[in-house]
């Protein structure tokens, strides 16, 4: 019974996403689901460990290019491609993580931004022979059908992406409730105390960095398979703030914040870009307004209201277990 209570929120959220597919365009839904996975990694870094990174496009590109290299040069199975992308993100995170997690706050944000710039120029100018520069790698026609869910068909890719996103969300939910999740929150605000309780801040942060960026690489690999194409634009530093914005918009540190943020951001982008030419400027102003009105983000503001509405709980001081 407890297990059901634990799971029902996640299942309901993804059931709603699945149902939305019937009345919302498929490309929009696919983008929302992949962007949700992208933002889940960023949300974990900011919300749990207190690391703001403006270099997430770099990790997205690591996953996307690792997957693309496999599908362009070596194989044709998209599932293997996604696994290669995840592995690529994992290896890169393990290599650079020990260097980066020693930094805090603004230094961490900027060193990641620098990484995104490096990756952008590597893919665009330095490694042109293998990345094909701005032309990118096109491999849609090389991707073969997979048994069960055929990822070459957008409708079936959506189901696959939804299952992957659900698994990632459930994994983060588990982490939230683990001792490790509590240690992440603890190191975020009081590393001295955690150290003198006998925990190792460095390994806790390193693991968080690896988990979050491997998730980001997974999103990158899924973008690669879905689009059948990757280009340096994916690592563009001009898109560095996107996952951070989505995280803040949805609600930092909340389980469903990345999904809500991805729906809101992609929705705003789609709707407003059709109506206004300089849509990014308008979205900028809109975001400033939302942040000022609801600094907890959309889900962070709505969740307590929904809880009260649905369960008619008495208004008490906030407790840590609410989500």
């Amino acid at each position, binding site marked *: 019974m407890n297990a059901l209570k634990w799971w029902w929120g996640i299942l309901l959220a993804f059931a709603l996403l699945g149902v939305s597919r019937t009345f919302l365009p498929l490309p929009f839904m696919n983008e929302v689901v992949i962007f949700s996975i992208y933002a889940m990694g960023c949300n974990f870094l900011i919300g749990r460990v207190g690391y703001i990174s403006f270099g997430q496009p770099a990790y997205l590109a690591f996953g996307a290019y690792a997957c693309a290299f496999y599908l362009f040069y070596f194989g044709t199975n998209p599932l293997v491609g996604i696994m290669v992308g995840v592995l690529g993100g994992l290896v890169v995170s393990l290599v650079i993580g020990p260097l980066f997690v020693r930094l805090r706050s603004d230094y961490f944000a900027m060193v990641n931004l620098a990484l995104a710039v490096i990756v952008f120029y590597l893919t665009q100018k330095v490694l042109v022979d293998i990345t094909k520069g701005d032309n990118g790698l096109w491999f849609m026609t090389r991707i073969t059908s997979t048994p069960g869910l055929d990822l070459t068909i957008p409708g079936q890719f959506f189901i696959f992406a939804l299952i992957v996103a659900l698994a990632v969300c459930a994994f983060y939910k*588990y*982490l939230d*409730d*683990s*001792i*490790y*999740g*509590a*240690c992440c*929150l*603890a190191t*975020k*605000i*009081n590393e*001295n*105390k*955690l*150290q*003198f*309780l*006998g*925990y*190792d801040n460095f*390994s*806790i942060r390193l*693991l968080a960095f690896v988990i979050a960026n491997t998730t980001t690489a997974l999103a990158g690999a899924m973008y690669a398979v879905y689009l059948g194409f990757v280009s340096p634009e994916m690592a563009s530093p001009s898109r560095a703030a996107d996952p951070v914005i989505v995280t803040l918009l949805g609600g930092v540190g909340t389980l469903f914040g990345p999904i809500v943020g991805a729906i809101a951001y992609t929705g705003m982008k789609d709707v407003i870009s059709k109506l206004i030419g300089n849509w990014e400027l308008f979205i900028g102003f809109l975001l400033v307004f939302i942040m000022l009105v609801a600094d907890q983000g959309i889900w962070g503001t709505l969740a307590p209201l929904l809880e009260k509405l649905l369960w008619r709980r008495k208004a008490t*001081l*906030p*407790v*840590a*277990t609410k989500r």
Partner: protein
Amino acid sequence: MSPDKRTVVIKAEGVSKRFGTVQAVDQVDYQLYENEVAGILGSNGAGKTTFFNLLTGYYLPDEGRILYQGQDVTRMTPQQRVSLGMMRSFQLTSTFDNLSVIDNLVLAFFRAHKSASLWQLLINTCRKHRKDEKILATLASFDLERVADRLVKHLGLGEKRRMEIAMEILAEPKVLLLDEPLAGLAESEIKGVLDILRQQVGKQTILIVEHKISHVQDFLQRLIVMHEGRIIAEGGYECLQNPEVRKSYWQIDDSASESASASADAGEVS
């Protein structure tokens, strides 16, 4: 039993620490005995917190070494010291304000009973440990049941202090090192915290750094008084009558009052 025949738990040998031109701790030798309740007293800037930080591994000494049960721990990390059985608190209340009271206790309890390897942290959930009998009993004995699910940032200072000490006791260290645990508390809260600490007497070695002797009157079994980075007196409460202690700690200059009275006497005579 004479202190000399008791087992030494922590020993400082010629420990010094300098910050720029300030000699914060100067060649201090000290011994902490098993299961005693000892105190470090001194006025502001006497070097007691720096010395405490050297004992607990927060600072590395410039000179000298720290031994724990005969083992040199001078260069050990705080995690290694915790594994050996040393646990410290901080002068300013130091808790995880973004976690609930019970999850703060779970983190302290977990470290005492399981290794802090990432694998153990990942496979164990807070949910499971929140029901542990020892944690529930601690909540009750520290009068924290009512606020168990509340985020720590919503607690009052007295509740936070009680919770912090509860964390340290739950972690079951052999040596409990408390840095001004009574600072900022109301009289009633001080009594509550001391009552809790009294329950630990004889079970754990306790070292308390305190600024005000009135707070820990009748609680400490042995104390040292520090001034300008040195130990100027050591022993029972009678050492507070030491002229140097009276001068540095209470700003009572016996020699001045003696000479004043002598000159008064001389005046009377003349």
